[in-house]
């Protein structure tokens, strides 16, 4: 290869590299609404077989464990149901008298979590169900232990959820006894890069003891009330005379979540529009 051809090749390689970098930067800077349509389209066409393959693999891996857990839960439920019917009826009657809506919806949609080996796995989750099963944006995502996040994008056979570790995640929260209201947001715990949660906006006069359970307040129209978010582990910082920010231990470990439940939107109209 002569010197001129070599130089031309190197220039072409550099040009291609710069073009790819420019396209990437344009994608980074473009509005999320543009990206969502493009990403959804690619997921439903070129990547659909690969997502189906991974869903199949996840089902195969977890089926035995799920069966064992399901049998154990069914046995426990059978015992609890002996007394539950009367309590449920009494609760419904009291809520009706107080004109309160049901605390947590009774219908849900199960979904497999398709993890990716990336450091950002856990901030967003790819779910193996989509609009063909009735998934819509703004559906809360939970597991038995508590709140995982919210669906932000749904395409035909898969959807994307933002978890509590996502920098954009916010949820209106209240302590278990209903005395202290605030906003829960993610944070990097003690600068370690490990995601944690903070209970913000707590008035300076209010004190929340360590170990207090924090749940969703139901305000905002996205999450129903009563979903467990985490437990207070201490004061993270103080704005003197104004507010205290409490550190929370999240109820859900996102690294081990393999199966989630999607609750229906609290406000059905929310699912019609994506921000």
């Amino acid at each position: 290869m002569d010197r001129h051809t070599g130089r031309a090749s190197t220039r072409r390689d550099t040009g291609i590299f710069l073009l790819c970098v420019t396209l990437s930067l344009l994608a980074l800077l473009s509005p999320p609404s543009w990206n969502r349509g493009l990403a959804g389209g690619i997921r439903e066409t070129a990547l659909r077989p690969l997502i189906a393959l991974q869903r199949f693999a996840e089902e195969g891996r977890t089926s035995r464990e799920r069966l064992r857990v399901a049998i154990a839960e069914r046995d426990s439920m059978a015992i609890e149901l002996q007394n539950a019917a009367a309590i449920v009826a009494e609760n419904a009657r009291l809520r009706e008298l107080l004109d309160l809506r049901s605390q947590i919806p009774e219908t849900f949609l199960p979904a497999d979590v398709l993890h990716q080996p990336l450091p950002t796995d856990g901030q967003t989750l790819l779910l193996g169900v989509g609009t063909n099963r009735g998934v819509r944006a703004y559906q809360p995502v939970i597991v038995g232990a508590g709140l995982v996040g919210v669906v932000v994008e749904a395409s035909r056979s898969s959807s994307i959820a933002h978890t509590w570790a996502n920098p954009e995640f916010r949820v209106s929260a209240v302590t278990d006894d209903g005395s202290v209201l605030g906003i829960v947001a993610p944070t990097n715990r003690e600068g370690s890069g490990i995601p944690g949660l903070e209970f913000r906006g707590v008035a300076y006069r209010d004190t929340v003891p360590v170990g207090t359970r924090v749940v969703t307040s139901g305000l905002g129209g996205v999450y129903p009330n009563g979903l467990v978010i985490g437990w207070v582990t201490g004061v993270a910082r103080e704005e003197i005379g104004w507010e205290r920010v409490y550190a929370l231990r999240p109820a859900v470990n996102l690294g081990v979540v393999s199966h989630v439940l999607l609750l229906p939107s609290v406000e059905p109209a929310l699912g019609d529009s994506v921000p």
Partner: protein
Amino acid sequence: MSRSRRGGRPLWIVLVLLVLLHFYVRPRIWPGAGAPDFLLIALMVLSLRTRPGTAAVAGFLTGLVLDVLMPVRFGAGALSHTVVGFAAAWGRTVFFPDNLIVNGILFAVGTLVRNLLLLIASGSGVIGALSAFGPASLAQAATTALAGIAVTLAIRHRVDFRLDE
């Protein structure tokens, strides 16, 4: 530029196998943090055997796939994989890619650099980006390096698809 083949199977069969490993075998065996990234291995294997321009395009497409599957910030994956692919292809003239240990180090460094760039481009901030050197990321670099060495050993004398300069 001439394309030479010294017998054996074409590289694309290896790449398809790595994609299947990524989407079928990995979720069944090791779904959690620290799992080897077979898509990154596929990108590095390709990058060490092609021109930097081709590697940059391959990196861009690989990153785009991951952006679609896990869009914390769309474009972050494309940017990080483009840089890693281009750098790996450019660096093969310097780093003797036929040496197994050097190959392993390249796979590990490629994983760490990809993770760092991905976190920075995702808007994780300086503190968040430091998790690219946290236990999970280091474990992933190690497992990716081991898996990459295994792949290199497996294809060493069976696949040769190099674009000569």
